[in-house]
């Protein structure tokens, strides 16, 4: 196997060479290298698997993508718990150390500024789902006498449809309210499209899929704000995930 490629995980201003991190993509060893006064976490990869043409092919293979994505995430996540990092975008690959060092050295100031902005903070994810209303007891008296059955059915359908729309509208408004409330406790926020039920593993529609960048030590308070928001909105279910490395905010300008 030839290792002519360099895969980048994250940047840090941590100068200590002693980092103990999990294995990187394809089981490679993660190294801490110095570039432009910054530390770059990278590992050597085989261009037969991680070169341009190979990447195009492999990224379309969901099984490969999952394995590499998880390995990449494990390294960035472990590093982010040890020292402030700026996660690099997935699939940032160089032809050798010299080229990688040059690319980072060139942008040293910009990277240090970004590190100061985001590094040391972790992000938390909040997903909000609509909780379907318990079907209340249908008023039995409304049961139509046989002659008007068709008309009554239509009327019932009409009121069901408008009730459904109304509750969906209310839930969306509640989800937005939750987001606005949580944003007040975060340094930055980022919205993602809600995930499909197949992925989220729930039948309930996802109304909000957001990331919140929190200052160090802000997690406990944020979790209690999330719990309070859930208590205040019985029509919603809130899922909190984290801490995540500040992925969603590393590429954002100040």
């Amino acid at each position, binding site marked *: 196997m030839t290792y002519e490629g360099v895969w980048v995980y994250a940047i840090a201003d941590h100068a200590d060479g002693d980092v103990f991190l999990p294995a990187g993509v394809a089981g490679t060893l993660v190294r801490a290298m110095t570039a432009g006064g910054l530390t770059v976490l990278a590992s050597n990869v085989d261009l037969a698997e991680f070169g*341009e043409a190979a990447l195009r092919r492999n990224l379309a293979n969901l099984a490969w993508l999952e394995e590499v994505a998880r390995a990449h995430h494990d390294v960035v996540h472990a590093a982010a718990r040890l020292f402030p990092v700026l996660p690099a975008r997935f699939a940032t690959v160089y032809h050798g150390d010299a080229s990688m060092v040059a690319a980072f050295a060139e942008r040293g100031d910009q990277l240090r500024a970004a590190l100061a902005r985001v590094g040391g903070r972790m992000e938390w*994810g909040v997903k909000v789902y609509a909780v379907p209303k318990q079907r209340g007891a249908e008023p039995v008296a409304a049961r139509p006498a046989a002659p008007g059955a068709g008309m009554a059915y*239509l009327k019932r359908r009409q009121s069901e449809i408008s009730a459904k*729309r109304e509750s969906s509208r209310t839930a969306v408004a509640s989800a937005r309210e939750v987001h606005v409330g949580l944003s007040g406790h975060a340094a930055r926020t980022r919205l993602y499209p809600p995930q499909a039920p197949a*992925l989220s593993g729930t039948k309930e529609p996802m109304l909000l899929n957001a990331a919140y960048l929190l200052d160090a030590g802000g997690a406990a308070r944020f*979790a209690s704000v999330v719990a309070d928001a*859930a208590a205040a909105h019985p029509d919603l279910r809130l899922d909190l995930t984290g801490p995540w490395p500040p992925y969603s905010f*590393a590429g954002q300008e100040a």
Partner: protein
Amino acid sequence: MIEGNIAAAGAGAAQSYGTASVASGRGSANLGDILERILDKGLVIAGDIQVNLLDIELLTIKLRLVIASLDTAREVGINWWENDPWLSADASRRAEERELAAESDLRAENRRLRGLVSELEAGENGGNRATRERRER
């Protein structure tokens, strides 16, 4: 692996808050959560190898299937994040327009249903008459 001493669970372990049940699970992070964070986010430093992740057709199609069913979301009207006023300046105008459009959709549907109801009422009365007529014969 490093065990952090941060009091919270590892990324991806979801804590649920809500009316249903307060479930808290440990486990590996949801793949969709990881992918939506690492694929198009993060620090962009031009690498020697330039792969525009959004250009990879198969990947895009698969992720669309897995990550976000936008069409479904639009159908139930939860696509507000696309034009959230927090994210873009003229979004609130679009949001208002959409509200208005939704209102008029609702009114149109009401009209249609009312029409159906009265047709049905007329039909039922006619039907009853027809039955009576048949019985009389």
